[in-house]
């Protein structure tokens, strides 16, 4: 219990001591007498720390309020209170730099601030908030708790609900406003942001952003996304540019090499080409000179050849005429010879005819009959001969000094040596030497007859033959045959002779023949051959001439005249000299090339490659230009820095949003808990106070027509009239006192009441005073008023200010 308040210096109060009694204390004084300051001093001594400076707002505010106006630099107060049988004196001096605090406990002084705070905490039981919001609160604040209920009566239909609502809004915090603030704060942060997925709502990125209701998190998220995109974009462009530039560099180096090569070979291109052209001209001149020299040399020869050919042709033609004449002569000779041959033949045939006729004369006796006679004689001889031969004789000269000569019947003799044998036909005459002659005849035949027949016939035959002039029968037969043959031939020759053309003219063929023979004419073939040869010869010469003409014509066409050939040759020689001199001044085809075509092809290829490279480089340069134009002026590093900043900010905001969600969740839980709690003690206290106001008839109070609330007596339905403005002050007081009653059970508590009765009508004042007095029976009450009549009505310990 507070026993005393010593104000050394506080606001406008100096050296003022106020002593408090148990129960009800009424401080009364006119306006500006310091009542409020005294209560501020009491509150400050109990709760305001002496650790004040001159910078913090509340410190300044406190100094302004507590330090004496203008010159005061400090405030100083003390209170004396009793607790648990001990007497304490708490002394505080507030100064911007030299504050002081002490606590005396039964005369023992304590300066340690922490210990003092511990002791005070134990004494005060409740925190400063409870004191400031309830015990020291302005009554208006409590009245305000019911303002919302009055304007929204449908939310509160029972005493219990009334109390719950009032309790919930205690401490001056409007829960609706608070909830609204939390929601709006959360919305400010999370609008269109999905907290659960930690992504924008509907996953809309910065490239397709929400246009409205962009919460701070989303805004930073978009900024971070944008910065990340820009960083990546920039980095990619930077790298792309580097790549393109590296390619350009490589190609440029390649191009430089090519240009070097090109310069090396192409710089002499004109000279090489000129060299080549001049060389060509020179070669042409050389070739022409070769020809000219040749022509020059050949031209007279060809002309001579032509002349020769013409002469030869002339000669050959004369020769040809000669031969042709000869041939003519020969042909007339041939014709003569044909006639001559016929003449000769005829003459030969006539001779033959003569001959044949002569021959025929020789055979004129041998007729066919004679031949038959001869054949008969021959046959008789043959028959006698066969008979002679059929009587063969054999002999052998056995001994003799001489050879034997044997003569046969036919008169044929053979010499036979001694010892040899022999045979004869039917007769033999043997002669040995001159002494011996022997005839032997066969007797097998009639040798004599036969011999005679043989001899006669033979003789007859011989005679006949002689007559005929034939040698034998056979000969006679032959000659007869020959005569026949000659006759036939003769007839034939005679016929031929008749058939041979006989020349009418009287020509002496032999004479003519002799003439011809003396002429010794060549053969026609030879002449013809000769003519052929001459013609061939002429043809050959003619060909030569034609060739010569052709050649000369060609040369004339080409060179006009032989003299011109010589002139051109001379000119060419001087041109050749000039060209050689010019050539010596020009670059030749480089050794690495075998032909100018190859050289030029290499130049063209190199130029093409250079042009290709230039084109590629051009393209790349355009690409580089494009990338460069796209490249932001900020470097990727700066974008990454922005990204990190934005991400960090976003993270902080997300954290705050989560905290807000937690707060809202816990608040809901608390409110739910409040609704569930019975608040029966508070209700009991409130009912007790209310019964004083309504004289235990609260359930009989008439309804206010304007309030659509059902009332009843049994279920503690709300007496709506209580909420009418006239009774609200009383109800608010009843509620406040009930709250104090129920704070921390039944301990005695300090209750500071301002002048809360002045707006009540008398009846209500009476009832309120009754209620306060009732409260003061259990607690220390300090009632502050500027009205003496209020003090009088309240009674209790009156303290005048």
């Amino acid at each position: 219990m507070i026993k005393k308040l010593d104000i050394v210096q506080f606001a406008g109060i100096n050296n003022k001591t106020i002593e408090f009694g148990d129960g009800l204390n009424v401080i009364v004084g006119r306006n500006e007498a310091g009542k409020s300051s005294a209560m501020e001093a009491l509150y400050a001594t109990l709760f305001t720390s002496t650790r004040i400076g001159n910078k913090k707002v509340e410190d300044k505010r406190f100094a302004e309020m507590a330090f004496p106006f203008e010159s005061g630099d400090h405030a100083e107060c003390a209170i004396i209170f009793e607790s648990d049988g001990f007497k304490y004196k708490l002394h505080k001096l507030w100064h911007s730099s030299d504050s002081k605090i002490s606590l005396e406990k039964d005369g023992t002084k304590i300066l340690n601030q922490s210990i003092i705070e511990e002791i005070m905490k134990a004494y005060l039981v409740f925190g400063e908030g409870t004191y400031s919001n309830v015990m020291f609160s302005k009554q208006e604040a409590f009245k305000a708790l019911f303002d919302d209920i009055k304007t929204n009566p449908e939310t509160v239909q029972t005493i219990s609900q009334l109390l719950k609502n009032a309790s919930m809004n205690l401490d001056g915090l409007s829960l609706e406003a608070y909830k609204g603030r939390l929601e709006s704060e959360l919305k400010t942060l999370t609008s269109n942001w999905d907290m659960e997925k930690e992504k924008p709502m509907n996953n809309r990125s910065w490239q397709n952003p929400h246009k409205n209701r962009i919460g701070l998190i989303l805004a930073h998220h978009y900024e971070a996304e944008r910065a990340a995109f820009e960083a990546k974009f920039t980095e990619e462009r930077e790298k792309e540019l580097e790549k393109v530039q590296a390619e350009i560099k490589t190609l440029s180096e390649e191009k430089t090499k090519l240009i070097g090569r090109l310069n090396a070979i192409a710089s002499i291109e004109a000279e090489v080409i000129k060299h080549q052209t001049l060389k060509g001209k020179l070669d042409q001149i050389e070739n022409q000179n070769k020809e000219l020299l040749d022509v020059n040399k050949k031209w007279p020869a060809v002309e001579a050849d032509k002349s020769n050919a013409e002469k030869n042709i002339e000669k050959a033609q004369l020769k040809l005429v000669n031969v042709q004449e000869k041939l003519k002569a020969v042909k007339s000779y041939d014709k003569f010879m044909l006639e001559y041959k016929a003449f000769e033949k005829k003459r030969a045939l006539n001779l033959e005819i003569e001959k044949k006729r002569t021959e025929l004369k020789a055979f004129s006796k041998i007729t066919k009959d004679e031949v038959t006679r001869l054949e008969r004689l021959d046959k008789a001889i043959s028959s006698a001969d066969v008979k002679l031969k059929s009587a063969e004789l054999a002999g052998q000269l056995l001994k003799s000094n001489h050879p034997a000569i044997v003569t046969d019947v036919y008169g044929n003799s053979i010499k036979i040596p001694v010892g040899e044998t022999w045979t004869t036909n039917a007769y033999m005459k043997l002669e040995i030497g001159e002494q011996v002659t022997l005839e032997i005849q066969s007797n097998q035949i009639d040798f004599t007859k036969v011999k005679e027949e043989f001899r006669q016939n033979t003789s007859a035959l011989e005679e006949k033959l002689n007559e005929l002039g034939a040698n034998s029968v056979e000969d006679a037969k032959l000659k007869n045959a020959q005569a026949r043959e000659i006759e036939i031939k003769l007839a034939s020759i005679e016929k031929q002779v008749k058939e041979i053309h006989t020349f009418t003219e009287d020509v002496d063929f032999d004479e003519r023949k002799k003439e011809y023979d003396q002429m010794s004419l060549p053969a026609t073939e030879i002449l013809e051959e000769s003519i052929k040869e001459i013609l061939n010869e002429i043809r050959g010469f003619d060909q030569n001439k034609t060739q010569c003409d052709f050649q000369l014509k060609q040369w004339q066409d080409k060179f006009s005249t032989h003299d011109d050939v010589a002139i051109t040759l001379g000119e060419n020689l001087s041109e050749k000299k000039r060209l050689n001199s010019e050539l010596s001044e020009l670059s030749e085809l480089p050794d690495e090339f075998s032909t100018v075509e190859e050289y030029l092809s290499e130049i063209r290829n190199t130029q093409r490659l250079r042009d290709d490279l230039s084109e590629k480089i051009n393209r790349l340069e355009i690409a580089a230009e494009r990338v460069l134009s796209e490249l932001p002026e900020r470097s990727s590093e700066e974008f990454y820095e922005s990204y990190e900043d934005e991400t960090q900010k976003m993270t902080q905001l997300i954290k705050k949003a989560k905290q807000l969600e937690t707060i809202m969740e816990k608040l809901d839980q608390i409110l739910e808990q409040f609704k569930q709690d019975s608040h029966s003690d508070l209700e009991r206290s409130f009912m007790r106070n209310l019964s004083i106001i309504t004289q235990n008839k609260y359930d009989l109070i008439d309804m206010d027509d304007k309030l659509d609330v059902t009332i009843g007596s049994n279920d503690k339905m709300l007496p709506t009239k209580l909420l009418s403005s006239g009774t609200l002050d009383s109800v608010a007081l009843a509620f406040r006192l009930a709250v104090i009653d129920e704070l921390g059970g039944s301990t005695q508590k300090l209750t500071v009441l301002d002048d809360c009765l002045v707006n009540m009508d008398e009846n209500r004042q009476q009832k309120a005073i009754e209620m306060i007095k009732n409260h003061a029976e259990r607690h220390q009450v300090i009632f502050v008023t500027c009205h003496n009549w209020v003090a009088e009505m309240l009674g209790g310990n009156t303290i005048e200010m």
Partner: protein
Amino acid sequence: MAIKIFHISDVHIGMKFQRYPDTLRANLIESRFGALINAVTEADQLKCDVLAITGDIFETIKVAKRDVVRVTEILGAFSGDYIWILPGNHDYYDQQLQLWQTFSDTMPDNCVLMNESRVYSFEVQDIGVDVYASPCDSKHSKINNIGWIKETSPDKNRMNILLAHGSIKEISPDLNNEYFPMTLQELGALDMDLCLIGHTHVPYPLSQETTTDRVYNAGTPEPDGLNYRFDGNGWYIELDQHKNIHAKKIRLGTYKFYDIVLKVNDQLSETELLKPFANENLEKLIVRIHLDGYLDQDHYENRYEVLNATEEKFAYVEINEVALKPKFTSETIDKSFTKDSVPYALLMKLIDESDGETAHLAYELMMEVMDND
């Protein structure tokens, strides 16, 4: 007799700084020109013979023509013998690029654009100098451009100086090895009298002055982002005829960036906030502070008063509160609300079942609602 070289790199003219407010952005863009002007001025004051710029003088190959012309005008003020310009990976050389055409068309007479990998020969202070230039020809490359030098035989009677651009394994991050990576060992093996390298924004060596190092990375002359915590620098290098070296780091930059984590405990005060920036010119500081820890309720609620007051002192401050939490306890709830009221119960429930940060958010919104009422 000594050759005096002023070495800078990575000016990155043309950076946009989109994340910053308009005025600051314009200042940051302008400051890069300022750094180049500072380099030229310093080089002249130190009577340097050569101003060597080892790449990335421009941010991109698409930098505005007016910026290129402005750069060549600035370079035109240098009165030394030569300005050696090496294309880097951000402003790599390609003969088709308008950037280098404009640059070549407008560059001062003493400027040599080293766009080919070859030896460029000079006479400086009667000393023969062979510059082995290794320009970049693309933004990315997994192979550095100094390979060709290995095939050469530097003339020991001349000063052999390498100008190259790319990451150096030992001193710069190049996770994917795509920025012409090289190593200190590789550079050493080239047997150069001096290696002037660009790309890495951090200067190398780290010391302010040296007489022993042969490899120099200029860093950027003007800090360019929160990931760069150093001053903007250039190197002033003297190389005498005996090839003795003396190098000094020269500050060139205007702005400086800080990206720091500030551990807080209960309270947040301007003093605490300013502590990491002692001895700095706050007006030229661009700062991101990652507040990490718990603040007392009142400090948390009033943090913007402190932060706003502090912010005014800097060129720019960005506060990251992801790791900053109010020390929101049942005491605070007790202090503000009646026991067992809805706000009281809600906040207590959030503390119990969720976390103080969420409870605090609920509380802040309650206060807003109540203030509005």
